[in-house]
């Protein structure tokens, strides 16, 4: 196992927003982490290399990367992992690139071997589809389009041949056509370099198209986890079912079933028992007793719901379920 996240908890000012997350990523595997805004998914991603400053966030649990607990490393050891073994691509390419340094300079910073730098950079640019700016050492980020900026970010992320790349909503800020190109680029790089990927997104369609395994987060915990096929064919947590059935599409026009009512709770006012209880269509009194544990449904498929077996049967029918 390349990365094991065990019982990760992160709190901002006494309010826990990641409340015990477990997640494993194998070599060459793409794990998708789905959740709506404010569910803690970005915090999980940042915690992997301790990018949340200690004075802002309290982190506990274990993050084992190549059998070392990252949370226990000193700053120097952390630096040797960040960018070198684990790298990031963030949501907004424009604000994530430093506006006053050239693209060349920002890629150069990632290179460990300082010989033949321009050849190295040219290769990186080529591998992310930025042939256009090879040799143009004075190009600044603002001179590139959004899609090209994101390519540059990806170039930086793979420059030192990391084993894990964490992509936090990498296509959300982009237009659909560009989105598709970037996803194709990521898939290509993953296969070529045997990368492991943690893909964080709110968009189920995108995650379904790229991930091997998927975790669904709600209120700071993973509520369902499984292979893509299992999640798509037999979602077992009421939240997952609601999300999947909420995807609008031409195939089921003007009738969205199983829509989740209400809104996500604030972390400061979490309900007792199952955190999804107030919005759940399948709820029973039992659910209020205590927060359910993740339990096995089948091989590689877990759900944090006490009713899992009955739910699938009670899911409302949909004529043409496309996904």
């Amino acid at each position, binding site marked *: 196992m390349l990365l094991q996240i065990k019982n990760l908890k992160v709190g901002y000012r006494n309010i826990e927003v990641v409340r015990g997350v477990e997640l494993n990523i194998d070599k060459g595997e793409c794990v998708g982490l789905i959740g709506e805004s404010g569910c803690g998914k970005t915090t999980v991603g940042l915690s992997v290399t301790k990018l949340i400053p200690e004075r802002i966030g309290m982190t506990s649990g274990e993050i084992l990367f190549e059998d070392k607990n990252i949370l226990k490393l000193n700053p120097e050891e952390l630096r040797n992992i960040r960018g070198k073994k684990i790298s990031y691509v963030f949501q907004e390419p424009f604000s994530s690139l430093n506006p006053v340094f050239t693209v060349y300079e920002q890629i150069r910073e990632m290179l460990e071997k300082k010989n033949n730098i321009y050849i190295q950079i040219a290769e990186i640019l080529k591998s992310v589809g930025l042939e256009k700016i090879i040799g143009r050492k004075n190009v600044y980020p603002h001179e590139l389009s959004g899609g090209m900026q994101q390519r540059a970010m990806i170039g930086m992320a793979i420059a030192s041949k990391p084993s894990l790349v964490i992509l936090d909503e990498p296509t959300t800020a982009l237009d659909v056509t560009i989105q598709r190109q970037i996803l194709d680029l990521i898939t290509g790089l993953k296969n070529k370099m045997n990368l492991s990927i943690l893909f964080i997104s709110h968009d189920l369609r995108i995650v379904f198209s790229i991930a091997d395994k998927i975790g669904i987060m709600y209120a700071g915990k993973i509520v369902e986890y499984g292979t893509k096929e299992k999640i798509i064919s037999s979602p077992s947590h009421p939240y997952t079912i609601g999300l999947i059935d909420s995807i609008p599409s*031409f195939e089921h026009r003007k009738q969205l079933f199983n829509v989740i009512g209400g809104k996500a709770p604030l972390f400061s006012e979490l309900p007792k028992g199952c955190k999804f209880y107030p919005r759940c269509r399948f709820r029973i009194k039992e659910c209020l007793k205590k927060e359910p544990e993740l339990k096995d449904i089948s091989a590689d498929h877990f759900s944090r719901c006490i009713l899992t077996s009955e739910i699938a049967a009670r899911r409302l029918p949909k004529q043409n379920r496309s996904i």
Partner: protein
Amino acid sequence: MKLLKIDSLHKTFKKHKVSAVDGASFSIFKGEVLGLVGESGCGKTTLAKLILRLIDADKGSIFYKDKDLLKISHSDMRKTRKSLQIIFQDPYASLDPRMRIGEVIEEVYDIHKNVTGREKKNKAIELLETVGLGEVYLQRLSSELSGGERQRVGIARALATDPEFIICDEPVSSLDISIQAQILNLLIDLQKRKNLTYLFISHDLGVIGSICDRVMVMQSGKFVESGSCETIFRNPKHEYTKTLLKSALLS
């Protein structure tokens, strides 16, 4: 019946030089949901604002019930606005942060001076209930509301003038998926109940496909293809429409 007939509408912003909307001509029929899909910067939001005369068009005409909206006087236009409303994309920018929800809705009646006193409050409560919020929201500030709740307030404000036509400008694209479904259901429901006509703008083909009767595809200020939802989704003609469909991960 044609509700709105738009003919060769043009708009160029001085700053950008290229046309934001370049000769848009189309009609909207009473009671339909007309979709407008395109990527960011293609001019779809500009088109929405032009139709309601929120910004001035360079040339063209917009006929609503035999009146050219671009030629009528300001006071006439203000009266006409009651029938033509808009719901915006960003629920965080579309409500005055200093106003309470009650004030947001009651202001509509203040401006049109058609409802007064106690009645105003009752109407506001009724509207809030229509959009799935209750009386408790009257005293709330918009900053205390979640994105979905704000969007509901935006819908209530648009309904306050009892319009027959509403432009929905990306009303769900900044919402979480579960909230997005709630709002889409609400919009569909309202449209059926009140026999409203929508111009529904979105970059998301899934959303467009789920709600619209007809679709127009826009690219750099121009329409490249339009037709019934069925035709566009099953049998697209234009290259750009095909790319969009392929990229939209619907398959």
